[in-house]
């Protein structure tokens, strides 16, 4: 049985969220941390009906083909955005060939896609188990970065990075970067045991980790926020535990591992959905979806979209699935 534990589920999802934090661009403030925290709790509220459906023993299939299609589109779009984020931040974390322009990006995309195809083909269990190890390693590295950053932080930076955009805009930003909700809807169906506890644990962890990482970023980079492209990456670079060694280069390892797993989770979810929607397509499901994601990434052009439209799209894609289930049930009745 392809079932995963709630621990594995949370790891799969959190890797995706932490990778998004790594790629966060523009100014961040304490309000951003609050926005991401509040946004996570709102997301939990949005997916509560979906959790209710799963708890009744229903699956995404019971919500209808249209619901599966919406989840597939959401997964593909989010996969595209992940590629876009990777290209955007790749140069900063010294990914070789990133500086070669389109050829370099194509090469990196190709390599990541091949690995993602392999990971997805290994099955959901292998993906989930390895994601736990990757997440644990990432968490240790992140803890080191956070501790080092806190030691070198300046409390005055909190004020220096004060944002006037307000909580609403930051919550919207949090929603716009929550495209993993479609993948969440698919993966939640694989969880064994207490589904509600799995979802709640995940969103609470997401809120806590996002808030800690963003606040750390603000504490370190608050004073130079205006000239910082990637505040979290910069925070890692600036918080050297030793005076000479550039330990932040090791950040690349976590960045790459998280990038691979983030995309692989979306690819696996998309592969499952294609299998449900088009059972006749037996081969190359994952490759096709990764090609579409990479294509969408190229369309997004390496720019991140924090605006309301994307926030609404991702929120609706998660909320509409239970709605479609209700409609289907009414029609049948």
């Amino acid at each position: 049985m392809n079932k995963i534990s709630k621990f594995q589920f949370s790891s799969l999802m959190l890797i995706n969220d932490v990778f998004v934090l790594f790629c966060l661009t523009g100014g961040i403030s304490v309000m951003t941390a609050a926005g991401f925290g509040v946004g996570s709790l709102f997301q939990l509220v949005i997916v509560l009906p979906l959790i209710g459906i799963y708890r009744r023993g229903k699956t995404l299939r019971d919500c209808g083909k249209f619901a599966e299609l919406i989840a597939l589109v959401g997964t593909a779009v989010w996969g595209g955005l992940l590629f876009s984020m990777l290209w955007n931040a790749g140069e900063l974390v010294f990914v070789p060939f990133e500086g070669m322009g389109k050829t370099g990006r194509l090469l990196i995309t190709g390599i990541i896609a091949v690995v993602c195809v392999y990971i997805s083909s290994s099955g959901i269990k292998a993906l989930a188990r390895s994601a736990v190890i990757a997440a644990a390693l990432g968490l240790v590295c992140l803890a080191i970065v956070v501790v080092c950053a806190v030691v070198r932080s300046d409390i005055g930076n909190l004020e220096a990075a004060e944002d006037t955009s307000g909580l609403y805009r930051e919550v919207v930003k949090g929603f716009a970067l929550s495209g993993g909700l479609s993948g969440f809807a698919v993966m939640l169906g694989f969880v064994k045991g207490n589904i509600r506890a799995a979802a709640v644990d995940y969103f609470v962890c997401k809120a806590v980790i996002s808030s800690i990482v963003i606040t750390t970023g603000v504490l370190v980079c608050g004073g130079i926020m205006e000239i910082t492209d990637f505040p979290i990456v910069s925070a890692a670079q600036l918080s050297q535990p030793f005076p000479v060694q550039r330990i932040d280069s090791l950040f690349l390892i976590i960045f790459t591992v998280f990038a691979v797993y983030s995309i692989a989770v979306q690819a696996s979810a998309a592969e499952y959905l294609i299998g449900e929607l088009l059972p006749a397509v037996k081969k190359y499901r994952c490759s096709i979806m990764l090609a579409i994601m990479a294509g969408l990434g190229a369309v997004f052009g390496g720019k991140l979209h924090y605006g309301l439209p994307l926030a609404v799209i991702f929120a609706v894609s998660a909320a509409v699935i239970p709605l479609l289930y209700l409609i289907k049930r009414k029609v049948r009745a």
Partner: protein
Amino acid sequence: MKACDYEKKKIKSNLKENIAYIKEITGGSSDVLINEFITGGISCCLLCCEGMMSSQTAAEMVLSPITYIPEQQSSKELFAYIQEHMLMSSDRPTVENYGDLMRLLHSGFAVLIADKMTSALAFGVQGYASRGVQEPSGEGNILGSHEGFVETVRTNMSMLRRRLKTPELVMKLMIKGSKSHTDICLCYMKDRVPKQLLDRIMESLDEIELESVLSTGYIRPFTEKKSFELFSSTGLTERPDVLCSKLIEGRAAILVDGVPYGIIIPRLMCESFHTLDDYAYKPYYAAFLRWIRYGAFILSVLLPAVYAAIVMFHPELLNSTLLMLLAEEEKNAPLSILTEAFIVLLMYEVIREAGVRLPKPVGGAVSIISGLIIGDAAVKSGLVSTPLLTMTALAVLGGLVVPDLNPQITVLRFAFLAAGGILGLFGISILACAVLTNVCGTEDYGFPFTAPISPFSKKGMSDTLIRQGFRKMQTRDFTVEEYHE
């Protein structure tokens, strides 16, 4: 003559015809001894296979008493007399077809056939030359037993029985290989082993239709998944004490006649880092040793790759003193670091292979010549830089700490080196993701290879990250079923 022609054929009642047919089956093979004689007034024939039986036992237990049988009315009475009045050996089956007869004959039994009888009596007088019990060559141990398995399956079975004197230990013999008729022994503790595991192992063994089974390598693929797995989910051991500890944990084992190793099913990755000495030392020291092994494994796989990646792509990771030192050394080297590393590692593999395959006295000399002379010459001539040679030597040394995983370490070391040398830390990370997924996907009979780390088991950590004391461990009542998914 094909085996299928005589396998099921019933033994003929005419002695002369019988002997002629046996000669036809064996093709007149010189090691099959056919002794015709008369005992109890009945014409008989004692069949033996030279070299497979103990001449002394055969003479004392069979040949001598059989000649003193009083006059009998018929062959049937003769066989009845032998069975009721003479205990020639503890193992004395009656055979009715030529297939069983040949199997027993070639296994070292003395087989008695008589005129006008359609069955034969076999007496277990096996006694072929075999290696004595010696210290295992590959699983060194300081404080534990120094006994290792031998090539004779029955000796190996006795070694297990000596350590587990309980009726719960079951050892089931079966025969595999249509030509080799190799004895295979499935061992398990009937109160510990999960029934599902046992059934599935039996199913896997039933799939074997090989002509010969000459090593454990013939059996293992049948007990593992068909998909590509870097690591093997079944283990090997040449130590009876290790095998017993695994049986107590609810695993099954397969012993193959002719091979001084036992197959353990299932095996977990963390067990490759355990030794029996861990349970003889104080827990804190055992835990320390385990961490040394974990570190050595990672070092062994990644050190050359990380070195190449850092020097070629991420020199900022080094402090200035180290950077200057490496730059000074590497600037004189004519080849790129990646090429250098590949050459050094390949040279090591060639030397190692030569050392293993050559006769022992020559093998040792080859190692010394290669290590000292070629290594020294390569550095002095500037072909290879000293830091790189040091890194490679450290990596190789690390691999020797975990001999169980040596094949995987060797291949992964090359793969990671290529990834690190071409794509830097990015390449290493990407490959690590693929390898990690493969390792985590390794699962046979529902036992994840990476348990108890992922899927995580808090209870399992007490004998993985650390080594709990026996006072606590005795209440743990652990069986491998706890990891079943």
